[in-house]
């Protein structure tokens, strides 16, 4: 185990995979100088500029060329710089990468990883702060990964690179510097396997990505008030670990989902609906969501904070849920 940051853990994963497989390469704007967040720093020196490739500011070409390069036998890691910019390449991702295998009758796979740094970070405002993970879960063909810790960012990125499906890999910008213990060895984390961040008996709190840390903070505060919260980190949203959520809800009878992204049409709604369909009788209280209002993200910190879901928000909602439906 080595203590490293969330960003360095991903860099270690990429470097290991590139040493293992010469067909793995990364492409995106500014990669030759380490990438916009430094998450590729030093890699071009080891792997050269063909495999740690700069790109023009052409998101559609970065994504579309990677689709072609994947179909032609390589394994590109696509850097989109900000998740918001990936919207310039939606056709290439949704109509091409996600569909090629199916619509061409299984003649090809499209093994590519699309790294999309997302989330609220330092007054970046409406076009550099979005969390759009729920969109991708709606698209057949895509895998959606939302790591929250350094160890997960290493193990999940390694799995994503070895996966033959297009993987939308959403790292959260606000936790690049978060440190944690990361396995040195070749550990691959499976998709669709949640992590129990904290065990509890009274309420299940499901989250992912940076919001997982907010959920954990809320759980600590709840404990001080005598409420035992179980915190589940889904890690991946498609596939997602229904069994982990179901068995937790079976135990606690209460489910709260929290995510940084907008509540309306968010993945929390999918979880709430699925649990309602399958676990209704186990519920002691209606499922609740703590997620963002349907408002763009502001620039000024006080306005930005208005749409942030805080640990206090979660504590308040969780506390009311202890009153069994009233």
């Amino acid at each position, binding site marked *: 185990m080595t203590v490293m940051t969330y960003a360095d853990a991903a860099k270690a994963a990429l470097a290991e995979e590139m040493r293992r497989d010469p*067909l793995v*390469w990364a492409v995106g704007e500014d990669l030759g100088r380490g990438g916009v967040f430094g998450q590729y720093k030093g890699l071009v020196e080891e792997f050269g500029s*063909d*495999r740690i490739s700069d*790109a*023009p500011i*052409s998101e*559609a*070409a970065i*994504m*579309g*060329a*990677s*689709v*072609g*390069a*994947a*179909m*032609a*036998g*390589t394994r*590109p890691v696509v850097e989109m710089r900000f998740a918001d910019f990936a919207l310039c390449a939606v*056709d*290439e991702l949704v*109509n*091409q990468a996600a569909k*090629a*295998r*199916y*619509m*061409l*009758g*299984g*003649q*090809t796979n499209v093994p590519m990883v699309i790294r999309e740094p997302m989330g609220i970070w330092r007054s970046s405002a409406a076009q550099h702060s979005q969390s759009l993970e729920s969109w991708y879960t709606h698209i*057949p*063909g*895509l*895998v959606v990964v939302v790591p929250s810790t350094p160890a997960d960012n290493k193990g999940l990125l390694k799995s994503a690179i070895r*996966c*033959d*499906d297009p*993987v939308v890999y959403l790292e959260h910008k606000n936790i690049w510097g978060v440190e944690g213990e990361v396995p040195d060895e070749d550990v691959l984390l499976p*998709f*669709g396997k949640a992590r129990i961040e904290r065990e509890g008996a009274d309420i299940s709190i499901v989250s992912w990505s940076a919001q997982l840390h907010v959920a954990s903070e809320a759980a600590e505060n709840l404990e001080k008030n005598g409420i035992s919260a179980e915190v589940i980190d889904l890690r991946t949203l*498609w*596939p997602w670990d*229904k069994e982990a959520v179901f068995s937790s809800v079976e135990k606690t009878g209460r489910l709260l989902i929290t995510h940084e992204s907008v509540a309306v049409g968010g993945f929390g709604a999918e979880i709430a609906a*699925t649990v309602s369909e399958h676990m209704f009788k186990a519920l002691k209280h209606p499922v609740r969501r703590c997620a963002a209002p349907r408002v763009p993200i502001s620039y000024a910190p006080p306005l930005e904070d208005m749409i942030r879901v805080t640990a206090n928000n979660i504590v308040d909602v969780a506390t009311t849920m202890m009153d069994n439906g009233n």
Partner: protein
Amino acid sequence: MLNRGTNGVGYGVIEKEVFLSSSIPVNLDIERYFNHHKMMNRIRAFEETAASANDDGLVLGAIHLSIGQEAIASGVCQNLEKDDFLLSTHRGHGHTLAKGADPQSMMLELLGRKGGICQGKGGSMHIADFSVGMLGANGVVSANINIAAGAGHAIKLKGGNNISCCIFGDGAINRGPFLEGLNWAGVFKLPVLFVCEKNGFASTTATESMTSGAGGKQRAESLGIPAEEVDGNDIVEVDECVRQNIKEIRSGGGPRFILCNTYRLHGHTASDPALYREQEDVDEAWKNDPIPKCRDLLKNAGVLDEDLKEHWTDALSEMREIYNRAKQAPWPELQLAYEDVQDSGDPREEAF
């Protein structure tokens, strides 16, 4: 088998000086153009058979016929090797056939039947045959350009001597991927041949009415990509230009662009009567049909007319047989609906 012609030009003597309509003498490789003529007839026969299948109500979705554009399909794709990649468009039957795909499985695909080239899951607009390097037609105009650039990128990374070829229509030059994909290929000096089939129409709109500036060739040149313009209905012009450009690409010359002027003799889809254009323009365009032009060229070079006519009768009976067999084929197995979506989160395990 090429029979001995009446003027003494025989099989095995493949070069003869002839004069083309442009009066430029060339050494004509007769066997080469005999094969192009044969392929062009097979494409025409496939398209006409597909059109009648459409009239019969057996083609399930939209099909976009390439009638009148066969010289480009044959002239480009017969110059590609099997391991060269091809990315095509929604109007891609001819390209696919000329790249070497099996017309039987193509027809099965158009009818959505078992044994279709994409298992009945893609239809006309997604025909692909990876076994011959055909990486797919595309239902989204211009989307194949970035993909083709990427296939070329993979060739560069892997160090192969094959190339990537992308054929698209003139409508595609007004979408972003045209700029982004050509710039990409230029920046990375990729082995990519871009071929623009300028058939004059973007769906039902005259392309020039919605295009600012001089068009595709000049746009390619402005991106530093050497570009040429040919009469896309003249198989010799297309073939020579493509052959020369492919040679340059293979020897490390980077991407090339060829603009092929042609005309879409039918509507946008097989069901489009194309009433938005003057009949006299269409009648005039039929006089420039690339297939009779190629036949005349070969006749002038001494090839027997009966051999050339046989290309058509053989092609038509080949495609009709194919159609008849396709009609008898069953629907695809139902479990295919859930197959080949993804490995992780496979809908056969969880679809909800």
